[in-house]
C-alpha cells in the first residue's frame, strides 16, 4: 500500500461517518425546511409536499418565534459580556504574582464546567426558590426583598444567565489565563521603567496583547449562548409567559413534540444564519479596528 492510498484509507472511516451523519443530514435539513414534513409524512412519505419558503414565511409571522429570538438575544447580550468579564477577572486574579494556591483556586473555579448541565440546572432551580432558596436568603441578609426568580417574567431569563455564567466562566478563564501567561514579562518591565501605573499596564499591554484571543473567545462563547436549550427545558419549561422559550427550545418543540420536522428545520436554519452573520460581523469589526 503506498502512502497516498494509505492516507485516504486512514481518513475514510471518519469522513464517511461525518458525511453520513452530519453533512448529509445538514443538506437534508435544508431540503426538509422547504417541505411540510409533519406527523403525517412521518407515517407515510407520500404525504410529503414541497412548499417552497412557506415554513420561513410562517415562522416570520409567528409571534412565538420573535419572542424566542428576543429571549435568545437577551440571553446572549446579558450572558456573553458577563461571562467573559467574569472569566477575565478570575484569570487576572489567578495570574497575579501575589496569588497563592493557584492550582487549587483554578480547579475550584473550573469545577462547574465539567459538571452535568441538567444536574446543576436542577440544583439551581432550588437555589432560586422564592421562599426556601438560599439565593433569596442571602439577599435577605443584605436587605433585598425576595425575588420570584423563575416565576417572574422579568427575572426568569436573568436567573438563567446567572446559572450560565456560574457554569461556564471557568472555561474561558483557563484559556485567558494561558494567554496572560504567554505575555512576555519584558513588556511589563519596560513599561514599568517608563513609569506606567498598573491600570496603564492593563490598558496598553495586557488588553491589546490579549485582543486576538478575546475575539476568538467571544465568538465561541456567543455561538454557545445562541444554543441555549437545557436550562429552560429543566428550570422553566419556557415559562413564565414564554419568556424563556429560546430558538432551540422552539425547534425542539416544533420538531420533537409536534413532529413538524419541516418547520423545525426552518427554525434551525434561521438560527444558523443569524449565528453566521454575527460571527462575520464580529470578524469584520475587529479587522477594521485592528487596521485603525
Amino acid at each position: 500500500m503506498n502512502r497516498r492510498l494509505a492516507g485516504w484509507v486512514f481518513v475514510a472511516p471518519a469522513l464517511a461517518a461525518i458525511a453520513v451523519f452530519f453533512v448529509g443530514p445538514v443538506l437534508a435539513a435544508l431540503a426538509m425546511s422547504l417541505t411540510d414534513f409533519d406527523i403525517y409524512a412521518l407515517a407515510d412519505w407520500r404525504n410529503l409536499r414541497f412548499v417552497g419558503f412557506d415554513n420561513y414565511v410562517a415562522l416570520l409571522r409567528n409571534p412565538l418565534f420573535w419572542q424566542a429570538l428576543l429571549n435568545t438575544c437577551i440571553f446572549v447580550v446579558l450572558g456573553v459580556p458577563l461571562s467573559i468579564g467574569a472569566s477575565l477577572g478570575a484569570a487576572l486574579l489567578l495570574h497575579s504574582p501575589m496569588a497563592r494556591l493557584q492550582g487549587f483556586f483554578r480547579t475550584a473555579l473550573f469545577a462547574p464546567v465539567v459538571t452535568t448541565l441538567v444536574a446543576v440546572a436542577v440544583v439551581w432551580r432550588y437555589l432560586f426558590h422564592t421562599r426556601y432558596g438560599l439565593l433569596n436568603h442571602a439577599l435577605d441578609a443584605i436587605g433585598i426583598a425576595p425575588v420570584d426568580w423563575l416565576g417572574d417574567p422579568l427575572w426568569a431569563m436573568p436567573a438563567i444567565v446567572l446559572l450560565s455564567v456560574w457554569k461556564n466562566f471557568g472555561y474561558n478563564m483557563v484559556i485567558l489565563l494561558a494567554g496572560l501567561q504567554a505575555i512576555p514579562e519584558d513588556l511589563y518591565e519596560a513599561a514599568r521603567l517608563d513609569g506606567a501605573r498598573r491600570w496603564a499596564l492593563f490598558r496598553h499591554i495586557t488588553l491589546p496583547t490579549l485582543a486576538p484571543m478575546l475575539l476568538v473567545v467571544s465568538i465561541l462563547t456567543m455561538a454557545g449562548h445562541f444554543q441555549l436549550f437545557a436550562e429552560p427545558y429543566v428550570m422553566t419549561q419556557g415559562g413564565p409567559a414564554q419568556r424563556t422559550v429560546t430558538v432551540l427550545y422552539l425547534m425542539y418543540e416544533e420538531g420533537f413534540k409536534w413532529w413538524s420536522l419541516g418547520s423545525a428545520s426552518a427554525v434551525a436554519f434561521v438560527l444558523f444564519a443569524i449565528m453566521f452573520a454575527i460571527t462575520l460581523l464580529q470578524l469584520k469589526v475587529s479587522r477594521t479596528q485592528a487596521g485603525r
Partner: protein
Amino acid sequence: MRLRPGHVLVNGALAVLSAATLFPLAWMLMASLMAPGEASQFPPPLWPKSPSLANYRQLFEAHGIARQAANSLAVAVAATLLSLAFNLSAGYAFAKLPFAGRERLFRALLGALVIPGQVAMMPLFLLLKQMGLVNTYAGALVPWLASVFGIFLVRQYAQGIPDDLLEAARIDGAGEWRIFTAIVLPLLKPIIVTLAVLVFLGSWNDFMWPLIVLTDRDLQTLPVALAGLSREHVQDTELMMAGSVLTVAPVLILFLVLQRHYMKGLLMGSVK
C-alpha cells in the same frame, strides 16, 4: 513573608470567589443527605440534621436509577472507544500522510465547525428511524463517531512526530498500518488520554440528542432521566439532589483525577 494588603486582597478575592463557585455543589451534596422535606424550611438549613443515604436508597430501589447509571456508563465508554477508533487514524493521516486534496479537505472540515450540530438533528432522527436505531444505544452514539474537533486535536499532536522516524520504518519495509499501530499509536498516548477524557465527559453530560433519540425509560442516560424525574418530583428537593450528585460525581471525580489531560485538550482546542 510579610503580609501585604495586595496579597490579602488578591487571595481574599480568590477565596471568596472559589467558595461562591463551589457553594451550589456543596449544597447539592448536603441537601442530598437531608430527610425528605428538610430543605424546604425557613430559614433554609445548610447541614443535614441527621445525615442519611435514604434518598439514594430510594433512587435505586423505587426508581431503579441503577439502570440509567449503567446506560450512561455504557454510552460514555462506547462513545469514547468509537471516537478514538475513528479520529486517531484520521488525525494522523491529516498530519503525516500526504494525499491528494488533503489540505483543502481539512479546511472544509474546519469550515463545517460553524454549522451548529442541531441543524442536522431532524434528518438524523429520520435516518436513524429508517435504520431502526431510534431508542437504541447505537442511536445515541452516532454523533460521537468522528468529530472535526477530535481529528483536529490528534492532527495538532501528530504533527510533532519526526518524519525521519516514519521514513526509517518505511525503509525497513514496514507497511503503513504497521507503522501506525507499532510506532505512531504509542507516541500518541498523551493525546489519546486527552481525547478520551474529553469525549467521555462530553457524552456523559450530553442532553439534547439523548433526549430526542432515547424515549424508552430503560434506555435513558442519567441527565435525561434526571430531567424527567425533576418534572415529576418538583417538591422532592432532597431526592432530586441525590439524583444530581449521582449524575455529577462520576465526571467530577474523573476530571479531578485526569485534570492535566483535560486542560491540555481544552487549550489545544482553543487555539484554532
